[in-house]
């Protein structure tokens, strides 16, 4: 009985398979019907007979050398262009890891030392000044980045330590990936995870110093620094007002944070919560341990800074709160214009030129080889009768 049943099942399946095969074979090969009739003569289609029109290049010095010339000729201009682009980017980089506290109470100690001193409280950030001279005005839109080195944002454990659902506004997320930064005081941390916990929290003010010693605050725009897609879809606040009792009810702030997530940007009420752009930028983990992240851009609408950051003396007032020496890192502040390629990076341009040159040299070498040996190579073949292939 069982056997009969399985036989029937088999036949059913075979029928289905056959139908399927028939339809597929109809696509693959038209003369199926002729096969089913008596003759088994294969179709003479070029595809089946493996006789499709083909181009069979043989890579010899002679055939390859045009390629080299073409590559060389194409790459060198591209390289030069890239180098020019990169060279046009103006950049001011100031490392401030060891900047001195301006607070007289700190006795001219570095902010780093102040931070690591035992009687330091988180509530009072250390402030320091970075003074620098911009000799040439930075033309175009000027961006302000902070840069870190030796910070492994790409570490496997670190990268994983976030909860996408929570950041998209779901309050009931399990936060399983965030451990050990998932809960504090039995309340879920918002936002949870190591990335959020390590949010960069130095703040900067850029001031232009007039010769008279007066300070002119450079207007900075702190929004629009994150990817629009991130801001729009990937990060969303939970429903409710951005208060302790509203959207973030029953949550704890990350252990390293001084302020809760809904208080990140007191100046702009809508730039708070998960949608805070600093947070979003920070959450987009860097690929390499030396990285920079956009902090602000100079507001071009201000009259003085239209289209450029004029040359002159500047000061950046740093509210120094982020410790980096514990992991051997450094902090930088960068003012930079952009080009087609982004920041200042001559690598691609140089590489293009080098590779282009190599190709040209190879092309010349191959030309010589071809002229000298190309013909002889085939002549030896003509005279050669030993075909045994050894």
């Amino acid at each position: 009985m069982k056997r009969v049943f399985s036989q029937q099942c088999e036949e059913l399946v075979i029928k289905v398979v056959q139908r399927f095969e028939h339809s597929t074979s109809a696509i693959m090969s038209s003369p199926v019907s002729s096969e089913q009739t008596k003759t088994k003569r294969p179709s003479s289609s070029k595809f089946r007979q493996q006789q499709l029109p083909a181009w069979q290049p043989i890579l010899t010095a002679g055939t390859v050398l045009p390629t080299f010339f073409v590559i060389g000729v194409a790459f060198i201009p591209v390289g030069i262009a890239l180098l020019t682009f990169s060279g046009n980017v103006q950049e001011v980089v100031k490392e401030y890891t060891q900047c001195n506290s301006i607070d007289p109470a700190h006795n001219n100690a570095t902010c780093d030392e102040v931070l690591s001193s035992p009687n330091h409280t988180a509530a009072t950030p250390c402030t320091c000044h970075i003074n620098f001279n911009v000799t040439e005005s930075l033309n175009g839109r000027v961006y302000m980045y902070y840069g870190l080195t030796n910070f492994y944002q790409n570490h496997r454990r670190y990268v994983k330590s976030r909860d996408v659902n929570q950041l998209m506004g779901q309050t009931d997320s399990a936060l399983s990936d965030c451990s050990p930064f998932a809960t504090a005081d039995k309340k879920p941390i918002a936002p949870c995870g190591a990335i959020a916990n390590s949010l960069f929290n130095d703040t900067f003010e850029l001031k232009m110093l007039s010769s008279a010693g007066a300070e002119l605050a450079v207007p900075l725009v702190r929004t629009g620094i994150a990817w629009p897609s991130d801001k729009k879809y990937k990060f969303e606040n939970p429903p409710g007002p951005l208060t302790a009792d509203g959207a973030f009810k029953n949550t704890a702030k990350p252990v390293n944070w001084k302020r809760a997530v809904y208080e990140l940007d007191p100046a702009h009420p809508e730039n708070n919560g998960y949608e805070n752009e600093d947070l979003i930028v920070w959450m987009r983990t860097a690929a390499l341990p030396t990285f920079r992240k956009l902090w602000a851009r100079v507001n071009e609408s201000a009259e003085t800074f239209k289209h450029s950051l004029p040359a002159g003396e500047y000061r950046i007032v740093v509210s120094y709160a982020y410790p980096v020496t514990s992991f051997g890192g450094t902090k930088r502040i960068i003012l930079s214009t952009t080009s087609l390629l982004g920041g200042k990076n001559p690598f691609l341009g140089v590489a293009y030129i080098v590779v282009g040159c190599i190709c040209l040299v190879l092309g010349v070498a191959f030309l010589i080889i071809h002229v000298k040996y190309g013909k002889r190579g085939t002549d030896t073949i003509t005279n050669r009768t030993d075909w045994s292939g050894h």
Partner: protein
Amino acid sequence: MAAQGADGVTPPAGAAAAGSAVAAALLERSHPPAGRTVSHNPTSPERRGHVRSASQGTQLPGPSILKGPERAGTARRGHARAFSHGGVGLEGLDEVTRAGSKTEFTLPPGHEARERSGRGSTARQRHGSRPDSLFRGHSRQASRSESVYTLRQTQQTSSLFDCLCFWRKKTLEEARVRVVVPNHTVPPDTPAKQHPNAAFANNYVRTTKYTVLSFLPKNLFEQFHRFANLYFLFIVLLNWVPEISAFGREVAMLPLVFVMGVTAIKDLFEDRRRYLSDRRVNTSTCRVYDRDSGHYVQRLWRDVRVGDLVHLSCDELIPADLLLLHCSDSQDVCYIDTCNLDGETNLKQRRVVRGLEGKHETFHASKFFGTVECNTPTTKLYRFHGSVIHQRSQQRVPITSDNLMLREGVLKNTDYVEGIVVYAGHETKALLNNGGPRYKRSKLERQMNMEVIYCVIILLLLCFTGATGSGLWLGGFSDTVPFFPYSYNSLNPPLEGFITFWTFVIILQVMIPVSLYVTLEIIKLMQVYHIHNDLELYDSGTNKRTECRALNITEELGQVQYLFSDKTGTLTENKMVFRQCTIGGIDYSHDAVMEGTGKFEKPSFVLNRRLQDELSHMDIQLSVVNHTGELLFTPHAARVRDFFLLMACCNTVVVAKHPHKDKLSSSGTTLLEDSADESSQTIQSQTLATTPEEAPLETSDAPDFVRTPKKWRRKLAIGKTDWLSLPLSLPRKTSRSNTPTPRELRPIFEAESPDEMALVEAAYKYNVKLLRRTNTHMVVSLPAEGLVEFEILNVLPFDSDRKRMSVILRHVATQQIVLYTKGADSNMLPLVETATDYQSQEILYRTQQQLNVSSRRGLRVLVLAKKNLSEEEYQDWLTAHREAESLVGGREHKLQRSYAAMENRLELLGCTGIEDRLQEGVPETLCALREAGIVVWVLTGDKQETAINIAYSCRLFSQDMEVIKINARSKNAAERTVNFYLDQLERERAEVAGAGGGGGGGGWKRRPPTPASLWSTDTASTVERGGKKALVVDGKTLTYFLDSRSQLQIPFLRLTGHCSAVLCCRTTPLQKAYIVRIVKNQLGALTLAVGDGANDVSMIQTADVGVGISGQEGMQAVMASDFALARFRYLQRLLLVHGHWCYDRLARMVLYFLYKNATFVFVIFWYQLYCGFSGAVMIDQIYLSLFNLMFTSLPPFAIGIYDQDCPAELLMAQPHLYNQGRLSQVYKPHSFWVNMADALYQSIVIFFFAAQAYEDTSVDIWEFGTTVTVMCLVTMLLHACIEIKSWTWIHAAAIVLSLVFFFVFALVYNAVCLAFPSLAGSYWVIQMATTDSPTLYLAAVLAGVTAVLPRLVTRSLQHTFRPSPVARAMLRRRRAEESHPMEVLSTVPWSSSTSLSSVSVVRTSEYSGVGERLEQNGMPSVA
């Protein structure tokens, strides 16, 4: 045996009487011959006693007797003894079977006949008896026929399902005896479960691996047997550990699911092929007796049940193992052809069960009420015994394998038979012997597996480095890592290292190219598809394509180093044509012509005018009157007459008057009963009545036209229409033309060997017609004397020692007794009476001359002789002969002496020459294969002279070769000969080497003569240097060489290494397999065996690649083969073109695949330098999983299936290009490392270019990963572009589509991935990366070009300075095309040149044909 009926014990009418009764009966009957077995068996007295008691115990009711294991054992022992002497007591049969077994299976002394049946052996062990003594007799007998299968490794199927079903089998096994009740005797309302035959398997056959229900579990089970899949599974599980996990759990499963899914679909389609063939078999029809309708009805094979009565017609396949109950033959015998089973091509006789004999007209299926008892199914083809209990008489009649017709056999020479099914379906001997398909692993794959192991080592190295780095990185921190989430409190670098190690295993898993296996399988499937579809491998004559039965060894075709070929049917057509005869020293030659048209075309010959005249005027020559007043012929005329008479008589040809017809139609209705009988009788009487006057000899162009009287025609017309009206739905494979024409009125000859057929037919053409033949008499029509009847006194059958056969005939009219003998010249000529008179000497001399001439022409020669015997002489001999026959001990020896006593002092008549026509294109093919560097061995069962002749005619040997023959008759002689030749050749070679070295050749070094170096790289060149040698070895000598104990294997192989061609003659099928095996094992060479007959099966299965020629000798070779060709000459294209391509493609594909994976892994590894060795992956996990499976999967397919490094016609025209594959030049051991180095370089370029380009930027990890992925993709595609040698739209599409597919996929995926939280990282990344800045494109182009630059440079330099032979040939062609475009276009590929190469044609053209063609192509011909 006459006492048979009398001593049948009549047991009580127990429904299922015990088999031991049978045993007892047999034992008692066979006690004298059992002596031998007993003497070997010290424990026999008590055992015997035991058996006796058992036999007495038959009074005990029921089968309970058999339950005790001991009893069962002894009972079986009884059988074994009884059967140890084959046909004990069946004198009549004995001769026939002996004569039949022409194939001599000489086992090398070291060989022991293995018992195949696993079940049998376990049973034996359980019984605790001594297996040797128990089964000795039987296994000896069985080994002869089963040896064909001995080499085949029985795969003990250990599948789960077998285990589950084990208990059931066991219970069946315990029964030990099966009782079969005819189904029509069982009351129709019996419930299915209580049906006496219900326990037996039905005739439904399933060779598929899976059923619908078992597919999923079984396939999964099988797939997880593979290392690669287990590895994958391990990784999936590893990823479930949260600490280690690198990917989302679902994503990690993706590759596994994908690979296994594809494999499962592939398996399903493969299995479907088997299913279809099963269905074809299962739905064949046969006629089964139906009780309800009272006659036979047509039924499907699968519906045949044990206990059914089956009716079979001539040439029908036997559907199940049948016990013969009734047969149309008056002698109650029928013939079956068991070629499909044991490979023996001779017909075997089967007898009707005793007690039913002679019931010709009275037998009716419904009247058969007997019960059959027999042993349970075994694999042993000739082990069958039991008894039939006739219901009425309660008589118990023993049955043996003589009564059993085996499934897959073909009924021959019998109109119809009826039998009862005793074993059906999977319990038939044919299916029990049917080993499943073997899994062959190709050389390339073996090498590849080695590289995979290297990959594992590299992987482990990377993981260890990563783990160490991770620990060190962590150790660099004092007590905590700020901001970093560690689940443990204090830093623990070793623990972190350990965890990271496993993470590395997961992220670097791609290093193990798991998808490579499934890619390989699909590629091979497609390659097979293209081979199958090759128009030039299609034979329109037989309407057959080349069939690839093995799907996974296509590339082996491109690496063949040794080719072993069968001769008959493979090189030759096995169509014998009578070409020459010498009578009394006068030579008559015949030209070959083709007769018939189209499909029925067959070679024939033109009658020799002179001989025809002599024969037709024989009555005129009947002039001399001797002293008794009788008319006598002139001496020459007498010789001519005797010569032809001998041709007609001295054979084992069976004569049938009419095509065997059955009075039963396929649907089971009786048809034609009267007319068929009547017409055949009429023909018979007419023929007998025809006197010479009535049928005068025709000397016209159609001499064999027989006038047909009107009456005949009328009869014939009836017969014809009726015949045609028969439904032809039966599996009538070998049925002859079923439209009888007047011409076919001549008797139908059915011969065991085509030689005999050729002789008889030749005689018939000369009007010496064998008309009728029974066991005792024959009727021959002679031109001068008309119908003459002879009494056949004795037949001295052919055997391979005497190499001759004789008949002793008595002329019924004159009572004259004559011995006619024909045989091999070497054995016959010494027996010819020493000539005294000049004339006889002259005749002997001339005949010998002619023999030499014929031999040189490649004809098979036979010497014909006669001897007149006086009555007394004959009677004296007969008494001695009878004595010898009845002897028990030393019978064989005595018989041989008796034969020798008769066959002496013969009178030489003449000799015949039969041509075994070469197949079309054989010499060209062999020549091309040899030129391709393949060492060709021909292994034949034929005799040395014939074999050498064929070797010359097929250009295996050329005239300038020195032929070394080794015929040793002892081990010492063999050793001496081999060492002598070896010394000589090695000295010669050393001399040549010295000369070559002095002459500045330089390249050739003398190697230490280790076996491995024999073939190593340059078999061809070493052979060429020392002058060409050819080696001929005969079967006996081979026995010494092949014996592993004789230490001669290696010297022998070394000797063959010096020879460019080897010919082994008189080999047995098993020896063929042994030769292949030692070459395979000792030399490690890749072997290909090609054959057409069942005797080649073992060789085909032993070789790495087995090729079957679907010729005349059944399908057995084809079934065992990996590739089935319609013609031998297709081998050239199969190897030189498809083999070359497949090897080249696969080799490059595998290397590319390994490179591709390694590059990807290295790139990920470099990233670890930048992420604290944490095991982070910048590439999105989906990309990572799909990169190999999807994004870069098309180029390997394009290379693996469609790339051609060289066009087909060039490969055909220049066979030496095959060296590339033969010497494994594409995939060398270092190729892997070269590719790894390239991968390393490319990964460095890719990663560090990306790292530099994004140095100190705000790039995030996923955008960086996306760029790196694109860079990898571009690099790998550019790499593929360099690897592709022949660009078609497929290749271009593969490259473009890969790129397009990636971007489309990435764009879509990046847009929707937010829906899956675990994959959200990549949201909108590619959109940003591709639009925000051009860095991605710039970096990809730069990295791609830089990465492939070294490969491009080296490749082109290589082609410029040291091009490979293939590249050189291509370049030459390119140049030729440029200078003379027309000439090249007109180049004709070889395969299209058709040469009907009969021997003479070939010999005149010799090498010149090749040379010409080469020159046409602008090639210098090979000197």
